[in-house]
Every structure is written in structure tokens, then in C-alpha cells.
């Protein structure tokens, strides 16, 4: 089985989900992590590979625009969807899935629990929301890692991904988050059936 993810955080989340619902499944190789454009470029190769290889694909849903996920998948892979493919979108971004585990995220980022908003898949641009939470952290290390330095114009801080990877690997409670995020719950159920 190949795991193809849009970026490193989605890959980490996907690995945790797979490990929790199908502990015996071995993720053969991982691909992607180079953004959405790389996925779009790889699309023809993925389609050809689907003849013999199972693909689990995770993308951020913020590219969908007006389309609903299944329309988009049909556009890419045709109808019916090839049986070897399981493609899931995190709506609108993987950050939503993390924020939906409020208590653990609050502990991890050293903020009081009520700082982490109670939200679901309807809220867009949750990366901004998460950065806003990190900004209120009592731990300077968290702020330095996750937020861009004062005069820097990158969207995220220098160790944003490493911090969140640590959260996903060691602290993230998937079942808690599933209760709030419909796209996460659906992804888990789809993978249960697929694997």
C-alpha cells in the first residue's frame, strides 16, 4: 500500500489514523509531501499504478472550491472510483482535525482550554486559527517555534511542522477529534472499510 499525502502533517495524521484503525496494516511507501501541485502532476502516474497497487491519498480540502469531494474525485479518476483508491480530504485543512481535540491541544500548546475554539468542519482557514491559539501560549518555546519571527513574512514559524508532528504522534486523540470533525470521522470509516 502506498500513502500519498499533500504535506508532512497530513502524512503524520494519516499514519496515526491507519495505526489506530488497522494496526496490522503496513504502510509500504510514502509519497508526496510536496504540495498540491505535485499531486496534480503525479495524477497520471497514480492512475496507472492503481491497476496493481493500493493507494491511500490525503489532501487538504481547501482546494475544492465549489465542488464537493466526490465530484472532484470523479473528475480525476472517473466514475466508478477505482477499487484500489481511497482518497480523503481534510476539510478545510488538517489543522481542523487537530483543533477538534481541544483538551490535548490546549495542554500541548500551554494555553487554557477555553482558548482553543470549539469548531467543526464549517470553519475555513484553521491554520490561522491554530496560529492564533499558539500566539496565546504561555511557553515562549511554543511561540518561537510556531509563529514567524517579528520581522519575517513566512506564513508559519520555523518549527511549526515539527511541533505539530510531535503533537500528532504523541498527544492527538483521534476519537475525540472524530466526534467534532465530520471529514475526519468519514476518513476513519472509509479507511476501516478499505484496509
Amino acid at each position, binding site marked *: 500500500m502506498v500513502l500519498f499525502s499533500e504535506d*508532512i502533517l497530513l502524512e503524520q495524521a494519516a499514519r496515526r489514523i491507519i495505526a489506530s484503525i488497522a494496526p496490522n496494516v503496513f504502510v509500504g511507501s510514502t509519497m508526496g*509531501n*510536496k*504540495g498540491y*501541485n505535485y499531486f496534480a502532476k503525479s495524477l497520471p502516474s497514480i492512475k496507472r499504478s492503481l491497476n496493481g497497487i493500493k493507494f491511500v491519498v490525503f489532501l487538504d480540502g481547501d482546494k475544492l472550491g465549489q465542488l464537493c469531494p466526490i465530484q472532484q474525485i470523479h473528475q480525476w479518476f472517473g466514475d466508478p472510483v477505482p477499487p484500489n483508491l481511497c482518497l480523503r480530504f481534510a476539510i478545510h485543512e488538517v489543522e481542523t482535525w487537530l483543533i477538534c481535540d481541544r483538551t490535548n491541544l490546549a495542554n500541548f500548546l500551554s494555553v487554557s482550554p477555553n482558548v482553543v475554539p470549539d469548531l467543526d468542519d464549517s470553519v475555513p482557514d484553521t491554520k490561522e486559527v491554530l496560529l492564533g491559539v499558539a500566539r496565546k501560549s504561555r511557553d515562549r*518555546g511554543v511561540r*518561537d*517555534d510556531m509563529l*514567524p*519571527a*517579528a*520581522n*519575517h*513574512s*513566512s*506564513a*508559519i*514559524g*520555523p*518549527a*511549526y*511542522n*515539527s511541533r505539530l508532528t510531535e503533537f500528532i504522534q504523541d498527544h492527538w486523540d483521534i476519537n475525540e477529534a472524530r466526534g467534532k470533525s465530520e471529514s475526519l470521522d468519514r476518513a476513519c470509516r472509509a479507511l476501516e472499510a478499505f484496509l
Partner: protein
Amino acid sequence: MIVSSLKLRNWRNFRSSEISLSQRTFVLGANAAGKSNLLDVFRFLRDICSSQGGGLQSALQLRGGFSKVRCLSARQRPYIEIDITLKASSDSEDSWRYRLSITQEPRGFRRPIVEREEVYKNDERILKRPNADDDADPERLIQTHLEQVNDNVKFREISRFFGAITYLHLVPQLLRYADAISGRIIETDPFGQGFLERVAKTPERSQKSRLKRIEAALKIAVPNLRELKFERDEATGRPHLAALYEHWRPNAGWQQEDQFSDGTLRLIGLLWALLEDESLLLLEEPELSLNSGIVQQMAPLIYRMQRQRRRQVILSTHSVDLLSDKGIAPEEVVLLDTSGESTQAVNLSDLDEPYSLVKAGFSVGEAVLPKTIPRQIELFSTVSD
């Protein structure tokens, strides 16, 4: 202390450039654009201040003389100028500025001489040359005050800073075959031949704590590696690094550095350098021999290691993977533009298009590297015989 800005005139292939630098700076450019030449400015200052036989004349000789260092496209004013600003830290207001212009004697031996040397502390000028002493004895102009213990008392701090600059371009083969090659080690050991000796000379406590941290980083990067330790050969007393790899036979998995992969050796050397000192560290293409997964993690890894010692790092790179991390800010990137007659170093944050791309969420790699690919690269594959 960190270098916060640099202005160059007629330095190698840079006729005129001005850039700002941050705690972590990535220098990008096509092949032969001058990435190493840019890093060489700092090595040049280090060579001037070196406590062992340093000085302006020797630093220029090491580089083949004044004419090799001066920009080929230098026009009316054939002097070389380096103008560098230092700050106590990235958010500090206290600053030093050192400005050095070098030219040649108009006649005679045409030795390189100081045309102008100035030091400013918090914008107040504390040195200006040529001064009355230089007028009385022009011979003094073959040396900088930076290199003179008697003359640099008021700005010893910056002389020490330059003197401690480290350049690292670890060549695994030189380390692995150090005994067989028994080559001469260049004074500051840029290629890592004497790396094991350096580890050996480190006081035991810091040695242990550094190896522990390196071990933690390696465990993530190198599959099956479990433990890293320092040891001495009982018979010869030679220092060695040994790593334990997970193996079905217990105790069968200890390997010494001559069996490490190139990537593992480079990574150990790099991590050690980050933990070793507080002065400026120059890294030449740290991505070499490492797999793309590790290279993708390198920018945050450097940042995290830096946090302990606040060591400024300037690195040159070609790697899209290294620049794929979205935590790299445009302010941390210097781009070498070769479209004109000479190369121009510019901050990415001063270029409209790539800057907007990064602000919109593209990584620096996506936004910039296409710019550093030579325009006729498609023709490369048609070159034959």
C-alpha cells in the same frame, strides 16, 4: 553576535551588492553563481583575524592575490570594499560596523594596501584610517588594525568574532580514510579530517551531552540506529565514533565511523558543528549525500539546534527539498542573480514576485528555485561527446 547586513563592492564576482542576514540564512544560486564566493567574504575576515599567522596580506595571498579577489567587471574604482554590520542578537539595537576598502600601491611592488578602514560602535565612529600615523608612515597601510592586537583594543570584540567564524564542508571520505591519506589538515579543518580529534579534545561532560543530542536526532534520521558513543582504540589510542545498529544478534551491531554511510557522517559532523560554538557557522551544501526525507527536515533541525547556542548559520544550497519547509521566511533567503554582467546578491524579500508567492503559501523552494535553473538547461541533455 550575528552579522545583520553586508555590503560588497568588487568582491570576486559581486560588483555591487547589499544584503541583510538573519539568524539562519539560505544562499541560493545556479552553479557558478558565486555561492561559495559569498561565503568566502566571511572566511576572508576570519583569515585576517586568525591568531595563527593571519593578516590582510596572508588572507589575500591564500586567495591568489589582490587581482584574483577583485571583481573582473570592476570599473572606474578598482578597490575592494567589505562593509559589514554586526548586532548583539537579531532583536538587539546595539551594533558594530566594520568597513574595509583595499586597493593596490600605485607603483613599486603594487602591494595590496588599506585604502580605508573604519569601525563604528552604535553609529559612533571609533576608528578612521588612513590617519595621521599612516600619513607619516605609509608602510602601516599594508596591515589592518583589525589584525593588530595593539590597535584593536577598542573593537577586540569584533576581531574575536571574525576570528572564530567556522566553515564546514565535511568530506566523508577524508574522515573515513584519514589514516590512509594522512593529508595535511588546513588550519581550521573545513573538510572534517580532524573531526574525531576535535570530539576527543572536548571535555567529557559536553562531549557526552552533545553526542546524546546528536543521537536523538540520528535515531529519527537513520533507520535502525540505536546508540552513538565515543571510544578510543585500546591499542593505538585513536579516537573513534561507534554506533549501535539494531540487529537480530545482540552486540553484533556496533560499527565504527569507517563503516558509517556518507550521509550519517555528514549529519554527525553538521550536528556537532551546530552544538560546538557560538560563532558564525558557514555550511556549504549541507544536503549532500542525505536522502530527501532528512533534507526536508534540515531547516527546522538547524533552527532547533541553533536555539541552544544562538549560533548564526549561513548555508548555501541547491536543494528544493531543503527549501520545501514553509517555515523558511523570505527574509532568510539570499538569491544570487546572474542575469547581469556580474552577480548580484539580493534578499528574496526585496523581490516582488517570489515574495508574494511565499506570502501566499508557496514554499521558498517552489517560488524561487526555478529562477536559479540556467535558462538553457533543456539543452544540457543534448550535449554529447
